[in-house]
């Protein structure tokens, strides 16, 4: 085919300090196609697209759009050229209405807002045409995440675009909402628009795209037509080698119950019910997984277990002792380790050094302190040991942890929590921000912990992670545990049904 490229990206480079985000990316997008950008977290997909929509300026290279070399100083320039992007973090002002969000930044700054009815009419018309179900007078903060995303998509359509970029749009959606979004992408293309779909989910990309470009380490590795490839090949391109998700695991019967949760109920910070009567046991020598679409109470469950959120009802028993309602320091001291979901908030203190971060829970006791004074030498040795064992890439142990990449920060958190010799380890998103090599290492480490008799509760939205190391997988939906699945006898789609709240389907049949 000799289609003139609609958008051509030529040898784009972009650095953020020491980090190379785009390392000479070249890519061609054809008019009227759905082109997926596939890659691991941190492969450089979002940064690349941010440069096309004017949010980030490239250091080097060319962007040719509709036959003309373009250089956008701001997203407004890109919108003028009819390029719109729906970001992972929504660009909606929460306390304004949908319509007010749409006219934000439009027209002259001094203009008087008068004719909202015509804006409302236009929104309703677009909403009907694409079956988006968006009400122009709704206040954004009252809407669910899925609705907000539709509001974002409609906003871009409202401004009038030919090229729509969607950055990881399905990360926050249920499978049903995802289906709806994927079919919307088809409708948009029928209307003559071009769609770039950023994702790291193979199945979605295979379902919807015309062509797929795989990114790795800030480069486009390959571009393929969807009919000429398969999931396995794509996965290999993404990680640079065969994905070996089958980790060796010794069949070992689990031991005594270490952590027991009975009927736990708690509310989110917003005051809305988040965890509704969750009961579960974790035994020594087993890894129990909790799967679910994010936002179904997993965050609150882990915060409540670790003492960071008040418990409304129910009990948490650790090693036979009731730890419900204790504060985090007391829970920590009872051989409870926590690898949190949001490490910047609950895991590390960014301006402090690696050394200081490794002793956050134990700075006041031996061997790290005697008589109120820190033992710098012991702390340094301890940290260097952890850095070496967990291959944390850093200059030295006195560097502020903020200078490390997200993956290396995570490795240090994992190292610290395991070094505390816990009986129970609570993990929320084990491999967040970690590259694939380190991920395998961390997962193997978890299996070693399991084999040495520790009890592990792994909350994750990454199904591969759960399937690879869990002995049992529980599915959480709307704050409840909907069911339990044995990973070796469960298909992904069965799990997907449960994650969507579909309890009635005989998920365990066959």
């Amino acid at each position: 085919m000799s289609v003139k490229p609609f958008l051509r990206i030529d040898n784009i480079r972009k650095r953020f300090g020491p980090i190379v985000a785009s390392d000479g990316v070249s890519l061609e997008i054809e008019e009227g196609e759905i082109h997926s950008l596939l890659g691991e977290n941190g492969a450089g997909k979002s940064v690349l697209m941010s440069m096309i929509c004017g949010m980030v300026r490239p250091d080097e290279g060319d962007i040719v759009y509709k036959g003309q070399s373009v250089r956008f100083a701001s997203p407004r320039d890109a919108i003028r050229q009819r390029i719109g992007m729906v970001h992972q973090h929504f660009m909606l002002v929460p306390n304004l209405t949908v319509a007010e969000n749409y006219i934000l930044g439009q027209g002259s700054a001094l203009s008087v807002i008068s004719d909202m009815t015509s804006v409302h009419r236009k929104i309703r018309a677009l909403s009907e045409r694409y079956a988006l179900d968006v009400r122009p007078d709704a206040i954004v903060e009252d809407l669910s995440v899925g609705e907000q995303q539709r509001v974002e998509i409609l906003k871009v359509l409202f401004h009038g675009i030919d090229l729509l970029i969607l950055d990881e749009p399905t990360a926050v959606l249920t499978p049903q909402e995802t289906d709806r979004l994927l079919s919307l992408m088809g409708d948009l293309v029928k209307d003559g628009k071009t769609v770039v779909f950023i994702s790291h989910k193979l199945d979605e990309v295979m379902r919807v795209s015309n062509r797929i470009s795989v990114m790795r380490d800030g480069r486009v590795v390959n571009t393929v037509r969807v009919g000429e490839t398969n999931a396995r090949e794509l996965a290999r391109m993404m990680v640079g080698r065969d994905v070996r998700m089958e980790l060796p695991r010794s069949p070992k019967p689990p031991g005594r119950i270490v952590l027991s949760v009975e009927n736990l109920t708690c509310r989110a910070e917003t005051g809305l019910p988040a965890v509704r009567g969750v009961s579960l046991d974790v035994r020594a020598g087993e890894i129990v997984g909790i799967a679910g679409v994010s936002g179904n109470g997993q965050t609150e469950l882990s915060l409540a277990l670790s003492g960071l959120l008040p418990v409304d009802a129910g009990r948490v028993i650790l090693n036979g002792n009731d730890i419900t309602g204790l504060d985090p320091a007391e829970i920590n001291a009872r051989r409870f380790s926590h690898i949190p979901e949001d490490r910047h908030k609950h895991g590390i203190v960014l301006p402090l050094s690696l050394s200081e971060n490794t002793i956050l829970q134990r700075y006041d006791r031996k061997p790290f302190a005697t008589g109120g004074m820190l033992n710098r030498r012991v702390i340094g040795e301890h940290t260097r040991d952890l850095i070496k064992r967990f291959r944390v890439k850093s200059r030295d142990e006195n560097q502020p942890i903020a200078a490390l990449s997200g993956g290396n920060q995570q490795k240090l958190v994992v190292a610290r929590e395991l070094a505390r010799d816990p009986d129970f380890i609570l993990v929320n998103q084990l491999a967040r921000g970690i590259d694939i090599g380190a991920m395998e290492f961390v997962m193997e480490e978890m299996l070693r912990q399991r084999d040495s008799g520790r009890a592990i509760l792994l909350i994750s939205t990454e199904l591969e992670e759960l399937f690879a190391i869990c002995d049992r997988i529980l599915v959480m939906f709307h704050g409840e545990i909907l069911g339990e699945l044995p990973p070796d006898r469960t298909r992904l789609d069965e799990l997907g049904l449960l994650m969507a709240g579909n309890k009635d389907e005989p998920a365990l049949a066959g």
Partner: protein
Amino acid sequence: MDDMISLTFLATLVGAAWRLATPLIFASIGEVFSERAGVLNIGLEGTMLVGAFCGFAAAAATGNIPLGLLAGIAGGMLFGLVFAFFTISIKADQIVVGAALNLLGMGLTAFLFRTYYVSTGKGIEIAQPVHIPWLSDLPFLGEAFFRQNLIVYSTVLVAILAALVLYRTSFGLTLRSVGEHPKAVDVSGRSVVGYRYAAVLVGTGLAGLGGAFLTLGHSNQFVEGITSGRGFIALAVVVFARWSPIGAFFVSLLFGLFYALQLMLQAQASIVVPYQVLQALPYIMTIVTLVAFRGKGAAPSKLGQPYEMR
């Protein structure tokens, strides 16, 4: 006291309340703009002092009150420019810079006043009450509302105008968004930094005007520390008013009522409470307000946070 006297008392009280509320109305409406854009300017006290001094100096030199008011606004804005530069461009902590500007405002105006004026001891011409024909002769209402000077009347206009700008213009919509989700504004192509500068300048301009009223429409003299904490009270007014300009107008009136009440009660011989207790009334109310309305519900979510572009 019979009914006639107490009604007269009440009319005088309301009239005085509005006059005493005027500097608060200007300063708090200004601060609403600033805070809606995410900038918490606790330097209002210093800014008002600068406005009061500049207004006094300009009027003393020219004998022209409107010119004095303009000088007050300009002085406030100049001070605001310093605040904006440090907090928005340099991204210094807003509380620290605000506190520094309060000290600077007090020291600078005291220094300049002592150097150039104190020995003259001379007062200036101030804005005189304008009796609105017919309305000012109404019983009770006339005394309460229609025998003020033009600056006091203008507070109504400023409040309505502020609400219109904030809620009915593209500028206002963007300004409110800057305090809630600055990145969304950035992506829409408007300058977050530009809007924050504008908001701070509107805010400090009005604070300067509020200060200038003290020397040009209230007392005929500049006195060191003439604002006596009104800048801080204006901050409390904004919280109480839930960041609404019309709300700020009425809450200021309420505080004006406390000022008027303490002044008039001091004059009542029959009241035996020590006058210091009465004087403390507006300040006690400020503390009560801040405690009672401490909820963050209506506060702009990015209040006090500098904006980092990536």
